[in-house]
C-alpha cells in the first residue's frame, strides 16, 4: 500500500557527543589520504630538511669536534653555526613549501565532491553546523600539515633545547613559542585557502590547480607589481612573503627596512583570511533546490 502522508518527529534517542561528531570526518578521511602514494612520497621527502637541520644542530652543539673551532676558533664559522631565529625562519620557510604541495593534493578532495554530488544536505540533515563542518574539514588538513610543519619543528627545537645548555632555553624559549604560533597561523591559512578553492570550483582537479595558482601566481603578481611600479608594497599581496614577515617578527629576525612590516603583513593576512572565509561560507549553504 502506498503511503501518501507521513508525519515526522524529532529524533529523541541518545546522541553522540559534539567532539565525536566533529572528529567523525577526520577519522574517515585521514586513512584515505595516508593510503595515497603521492601523499606518502611527499611526507617522506618533507623529512629530509628537518633531518639536515637536526644534523646541523648536532654539529653546532659539538663545535669542539671541528678542528678549526677547537681552540679559540674562527668567529665566522662559529657565527654561522649559531642556532637563532634566522635558523628557525629558514627551517619554517622550507617546510612551508611541502605544506603548500600537500594542501594542493589533499585539500581539493575535501569539499569539492560534496558540492559536486549535492551531498551537503546529507551532512547538514545531521546535528552538524556549517562551522562544525568547516572545522572538521580543516581538522583533516591540520593533522596532515602538522606532520610536515609543527611536528618536525617541535622535534628540531626539542633537540636543540636538549643539546644546548639550560641557559640557551631560558634565553630562547620565545623561538619555540614563535615557531608554534607561526606554524599554527600558517596551517590555518593554507587549510582555509585549500578549502575555499575546493568549494569555489567544485572540481577536484581544477581546485588543486587553483591552490597552486593562489600561491605561485600571487607571488609572481606581487613581484611584477614591485618591478613595474618600483615599489615594495606589492609584496603584501604575496601570502608567502606576508607570512614569512610575520614569522620573522615572531622569531625576532630583522627584515628589510624598506619592505612592508610585520603588522602590515599581519593585517593583510587577516583581510585575506576574512575574504576566503566569506567565500567559503557563501559556497557552503545547506540548501537544495529541487526543480
Amino acid at each position: 500500500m502506498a503511503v501518501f502522508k507521513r508525519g515526522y518527529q524529532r529524533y529523541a534517542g541518545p546522541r553522540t557527543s559534539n567532539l565525536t561528531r566533529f572528529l567523525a570526518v577526520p577519522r574517515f578521511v585521514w586513512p584515505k589520504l595516508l593510503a595515497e602514494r603521492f601523499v606518502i612520497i611527499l611526507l617522506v621527502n618533507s623529512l629530509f630538511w628537518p633531518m639536515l637541520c637536526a644534523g646541523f644542530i648536532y654539529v653546532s652543539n659539538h663545535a669542539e669536534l671541528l678542528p678549526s673551532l677547537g681552540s679559540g676558533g674562527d668567529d665566522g664559522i662559529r657565527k654561522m653555526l649559531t642556532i637563532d631565529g634566522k635558523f628557525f625562519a629558514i627551517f619554517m620557510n622550507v617546510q612551508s613549501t611541502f605544506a603548500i604541495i600537500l594542501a594542493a593534493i589533499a585539500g581539493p578532495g575535501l569539499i569539492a565532491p560534496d558540492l559536486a554530488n549535492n551531498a551537503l544536505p546529507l551532512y547538514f540533515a545531521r546535528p552538524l553546523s556549517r562551522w562544525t563542518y568547516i572545522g572538521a574539514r580543516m581538522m583533516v588538513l591540520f593533522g596532515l600539515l602538522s606532520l610536515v610543519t609543527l611536528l618536525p619543528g617541535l622535534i628540531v627545537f626539542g633537540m636543540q633545547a636538549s643539546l644546548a645548555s639550560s641557559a640557551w632555553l631560558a634565553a630562547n624559549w620565545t623561538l619555540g613559542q614563535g615557531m608554534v604560533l607561526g606554524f599554527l597561523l600558517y596551517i590555518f591559512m593554507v587549510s582555509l585557502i585549500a578549502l575555499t578553492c575546493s568549494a569555489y570550483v567544485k572540481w577536484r582537479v581544477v581546485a588543486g590547480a587553483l591552490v597552486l595558482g593562489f600561491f605561485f601566481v600571487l607571488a609572481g603578481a606581487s613581484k611584477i607589481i614591485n618591478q613595474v611600479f618600483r615599489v615594495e608594497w606589492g609584496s603584501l599581496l604575496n601570502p608567502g612573503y606576508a607570512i614569512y614577515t610575520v614569522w620573522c617578527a615572531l622569531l625576532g629576525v630583522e627584515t628589510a627596512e624598506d619592505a612592508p612590516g610585520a603588522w602590515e603583513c599581519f593585517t593583510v593576512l587577516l583581510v585575506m583570511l576574512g575574504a576566503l572565509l566569506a567565500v567559503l561560507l557563501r559556497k557552503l549553504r545547506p540548501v537544495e533546490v529541487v526543480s
Partner: protein
Amino acid sequence: MNQIWIIAKLEIRRAFFSRRALWVYLLALFPAVLFFGHGVNVQYQRSEYAGKPVTPAAILDRIPTGAAESDVLAAAGQPITDRQWKRRDTQRRSLQYYDGSNRVWLEFENGALKSTRRRTLNSFEEDSKVYAGVFQFFYLRLAIFFGCLGIFINLFRGEMIDKSLHYWFLAPVRREILLLGKYCAGLIASAAIFGGGALLSFGALLAYQSSADLQSYLQSDALSHGTWYFLSAVLGCVGYGSVFLAAGLLLRNPIIPALVMLLWESINGFLPDLLQKLSVLHYLQSLCPVAPPLDPSVPPLARMILAPAAPTSAWAAITGLLAVTALVLYVASRTARRLEINYGTE
C-alpha cells in the same frame, strides 16, 4: 580537416566564454593593466614634477657620503620633500631633490649622509628590461602555464567530470580527429588570449614613452620585439597545451604532473645545461628578444649556482617545440584510441 574544424568551432565557444575563462583573461591581461597603470602614473609624475624646483645634477653629485645635513641643505637648497623618523634608536632623514630628469633621495642617519638613491622619472631602457622580466618570469612561467592548465585540462578531463565525454565518443569521428579538434580549439583560444595579452601589454609599455624614445624604437626594434614576444606566447600555448591535454587524458589527477612540471620549470636556471634544455621554458626564453635583469631578491648563494644555458637558436627552438608537441599529441592520440570511460571513478 573539415571534421577537425567543426569540433574546434564547437569547443572554441566553451574555451572563450565559459565562466572559468574569466580567470584566464585576468591572468593574460594583468601585465597590460599594470603597464597601463604605470603609464598613467608616469604621466601624472611628469606633470607634477614640471613645476618643482630643479637642483642641478652637478651639485647633487658633488655631495660626499658622510656629509652633514646642514652642509647638504646649504649646498643643494630646500628639498622637494623632507621626511624625518626614528627607528631602532637611529634618527633618520630623507631629503628629496629633482635634477630635471631624475628624482634623488639623500638618506641621512644621525645627521650624516648615509646613501643616495637616484631614480629617473621614466627610462625606456629600464622599462623594456622590466617588461622582459615580467614577460619571462610572470607571463611565460605562470600566466601561460596556469592558463593553459585551465584551458587544456578542461578539454578531456573536464568532460569526464561533467560526464559528457561519451557524447563525443558516440559521434562518427575518429578519436584522433576528436583530439586534434579539441587541441586546435584550445590552441586558438589560448593563443588569442595570451598572444593578444602579450601584444596589449607591449602596446601599454610603448604608450607612455617620450616621443623621442618611441620614435627611435619604432624605427629600430619595435616590430621585431613585438613579433617575438607574440610568437613566444603562442608557442608557449602550443607546448604547454599539448602537455596538459595529454596529462588530462593519461592521468586521473593531472595536477601531479602539472606540479612536477612547475617545479622543474622553476628550478630550470639551477640545472646543468643539458637538463635545462629538457624544458619548454628554455626554448621560449631563447625566443625572447631582451634578456631580463636578475631578480634582486635572489640570495647571493643562489646567484652563484644560477647559470642559464646559452639560448638555442630561434629556428631550432621553434622546430624543437613543434616536434615535442607533435610527439606528445601522437602519444595522446594513441591513448585516446584506447580510452574507456568509467565515470564512476571520477
